[in-house]
């Protein structure tokens, strides 16, 4: 082993002081903070390689302004785009267009256009710079955009000056059960390593001031591309099955006979419990037990909820069962991709079984599609809530 002599330690310590130092300092106002980034496919394509467009949204702090001084009419951001084959290369090329040092440690949102995610290898390769880059944070949120992703960065939301900040808060808002939880880059990277399938939040532009966060894109871990998407309704079904639906409402038909008698239930609690029933890998049987509790917020049914809470509960159970079964069918037949985190469950609880089937889980043999998923719903409507019947009762 090398043991330094006492005299040689002095230059070592000097180096310690001199090698780091004030020439590495860049004042905060001289940095260009990238808050959001998007990756699109370029129209011009070479034969071998896909051309990509990287767009960085750089914050202009004076446009944001401080709390006392209004930012004025100045735009608070600046979008810089560049076309190229390799994201890492493009990243350095971007500096040619920016007058300040680009700084990605506050990068919060990363959006891919749907086309990029459907290209084999392109999606994964372009992720490399974000997952492995020294400056990159593991907490940035990843989403897929309908159409051109960079268009999302040009949205002009009314109450917030940075479009990417708007997208970030939009992804975090979980008050609806029709959206997936925000996907952190950290998780995405983990799933890619484990060859897991997963879902990515899906964004689309609704008008020039608003973006809609609705449904999910489905990524197949074995095929390594996005194979399709679920709309809001089916996403809700998926969230019921995984127990992720925390908030939100559901429209349930109360009396089958009348088509207009519907009631809206707001969930207070959703729990799901997943069990593997047998071990035969060609005919796997899963059982998902769900406990759903909710309150009635609105009803047009003639059935009085005070006396007939059971009727409502039954209706709720039935609607959820229908919805979840529809979701399962879509996943197993159309997408042929495990979006219910069964892979996570199997790897955690039945590791040996998982080892034998993981290469053919939702590809090839596709054990996932062959398996049988049995859903049991225990729905409870707890209160009649703010319906007209509650006032009726008070008056009587």
């Amino acid at each position, binding site marked *: 082993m090398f043991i330094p002599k006492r005299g040689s330690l002095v230059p070592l310590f000097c180096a310690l002081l001199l090698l780091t130092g*004030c020439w590495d300092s*860049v004042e905060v106002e001289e940095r260009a*903070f990238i808050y959001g980034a998007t990756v699109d496919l370029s129209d011009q394509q070479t034969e071998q390689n896909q051309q990509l467009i990287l767009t960085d949204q750089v*914050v202009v702090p004076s446009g944001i*302004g401080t709390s006392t001084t209004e930012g004025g009419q100045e735009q608070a951001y600046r979008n810089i785009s560049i076309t190229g084959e390799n994201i890492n290369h493009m990243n350095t090329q971007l500096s040619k267009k920016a007058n300040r040092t680009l700084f990605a440690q506050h990068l*919060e949102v990363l959006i891919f256009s749907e086309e990029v995610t459907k290209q084999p290898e392109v999606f994964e390769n372009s992720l490399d710079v974000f997952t492995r880059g020294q400056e990159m944070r593991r907490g940035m949120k990843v989403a897929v955009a309908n159409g051109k992703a960079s268009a999302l960065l040009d949205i002009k939301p009314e109450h917030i000056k940075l479009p990417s900040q708007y997208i970030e808060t939009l992804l975090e808002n979980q008050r609806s059960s029709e959206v997936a939880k925000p996907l952190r880059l950290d998780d995405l990277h983990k799933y890619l390593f484990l060859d897991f399938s997963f879902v990515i939040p899906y964004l689309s532009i609704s008008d020039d001031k608003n973006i809609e966060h609705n449904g999910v894109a489905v990524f197949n871990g074995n095929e390594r591309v996005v194979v399709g998407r679920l709309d809001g309704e089916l996403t809700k079904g998926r969230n019921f099955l995984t127990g992720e639906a925390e908030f939100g409402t559901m429209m349930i038909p109360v009396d089958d006979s009348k088509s207009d008698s519907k009631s809206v239930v707001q969930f207070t609690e959703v729990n799901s419990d997943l069990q593997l029933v047998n071990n035969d890998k060609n005919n796997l049987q899963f059982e998902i037990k769900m406990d759903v509790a909710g309150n009635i917020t609105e009803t047009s049914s003639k059935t009085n909820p005070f006396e007939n809470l059971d009727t409502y509960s039954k209706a709720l159970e039935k609607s959820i069962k229908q919805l979840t079964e529809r979701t399962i069918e879509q996943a197993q037949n159309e997408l042929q991709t495990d979006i219910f985190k069964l892979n996570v469950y199997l790897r955690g609880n039945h590791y040996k079984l998982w080892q034998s089937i993981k290469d053919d889980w939702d590809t090839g043999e596709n054990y996932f599609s062959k398996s049988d998923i049995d859903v049991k719903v225990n729905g409870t409507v707890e209160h009649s809530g703010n319906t007209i019947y509650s006032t009726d009762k008070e008056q009587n």
Partner: protein
Amino acid sequence: MNKRSKFKSENSKASSPQQDDSFTIEIGTNLDKNLTSLKTMLGEPTDLIIREITIGPNQEKIAMIYMSGMTDNQLVHNNILKTVLSSQPQADADLLDYFYQEIIAIADITKTNSLDDVSYAILSGDTAIYVDGTNTVLLMGTAGGEDRAVEEPQSERLIRGPRAGFIENIGTNLSLIRQDIKDPNLRFKTHEIGRRSKQKLVVSYIEGIIHPDLVDEINRRLASIDTDYAVSSGEVEQWIQDSFLSPFPQLVDTERPDRAVEALLKGKVVILVDGTPFVLITPVTLTETFHSLEDDNQRWIVGTSLRFLRYLSAFIAIFLPSLYIAIVSYHPEMLPAKLVFSIAAAREGVPFPAFVEALMMAITFEILHEAGVRLPKIIGATIGIVGGLVIGESAVSAGIVSPIMVIITALTAIASFTAPHYSMAISLRLLRFTFMIAAAFLGLYGIILVYIMVNIHIVNLKSVGIPYSVPFAPVIGKDWKDMIIRAPLMMLMKRPAYLNTKDDTAAKKRRQSK
């Protein structure tokens, strides 16, 4: 060589005026000669009052001598002059004894044969009576003169606590301590410091509580002081402190008798110096310099919270500007995105790097503070306005500094003043600059390096031989009850263990029979 030795001899001559040949040290029996030698010794000052009186059937001459302005005039007039003038001694009486025994109505009266004693007594405000024909002189303790009233100290205010403070007179100060501790074991050991000033310095402690080695060590150090004049206790502090290079005070000063009393009862030494209202307390530890009497005067939850607040303020005072520099110049990723953007927006257009900006503001503040202390009180208020306006408003609107820097400077300044000891507050403000420079060079890494250095220094520092970092290092678990937190009084029955007191019980729970 020759020149040097000559210079040396001159020097030594000047330093000991008593060695002069023009007058004798011994007191003779001739009154006139005695008076002349005394006058020569003191250089015939204008404030020396010599009252010659002829008294008794034998027409004996006596002289009464004192310094005007340094005596208690009423005492001199009523208890000495009047009684002496109205006295009717027997013809064959020994006048000196007669005065000593019967006439003079002052308790503090001594006899001496030494001119040195006489001159020292007169210069201290005592009155001397010479009687013709004897070589003995009567000295009466009449020291008094103008004194300030005992009032609330300016430098250490408490919301809940006594309104008394020490004054310049050491006698009054001793009595202030004596009033609070009526223990016969309270000791006042007098030293004399200042070859020319001959100031009284009193080492005070409670025998039976204090560890004897501590007293011995302090007496040894005090004996080593050799100076003309100790301007104040601050100079004594610098003579006897352990490390003169340290930024931390190893003896703390206080103007409050209650704080001195508390220290005595804990088993510490209090040093009083004549002529200064600041007494010294030693030994101290780092944590104790952040303790205020307020902590003990309030209930323990309040006391503990106040202490937390003070420690937090100390950290703010040391670290805030340097953290700002480090984060703005090196590590913008350490802050939440929105905060970084607002800092960046505020700094947009500021022409200086963060370090220069922070340094400018810190120095401006120090200048303002210094000016505020020096200025007469009437103008003092102007400083507030000018300072507030110049720094706060104009600097920002002129675009020289960012508004955030103003907040940081203000917060740092205010936080540094929460330290209950002013000497500690200054140290903190000084250390802040070191941290700022380190942050400017090396960012957070530099701050951590300097912080480690400061910690190494603290664990090496001692206050009169007692580790400064006690009870953290070495760990004394018992003393943690009164360190960062101030435990309820019921749990603080023992004196601090680190002082190794002879009697370690400060309080006891007394069972009440019903």
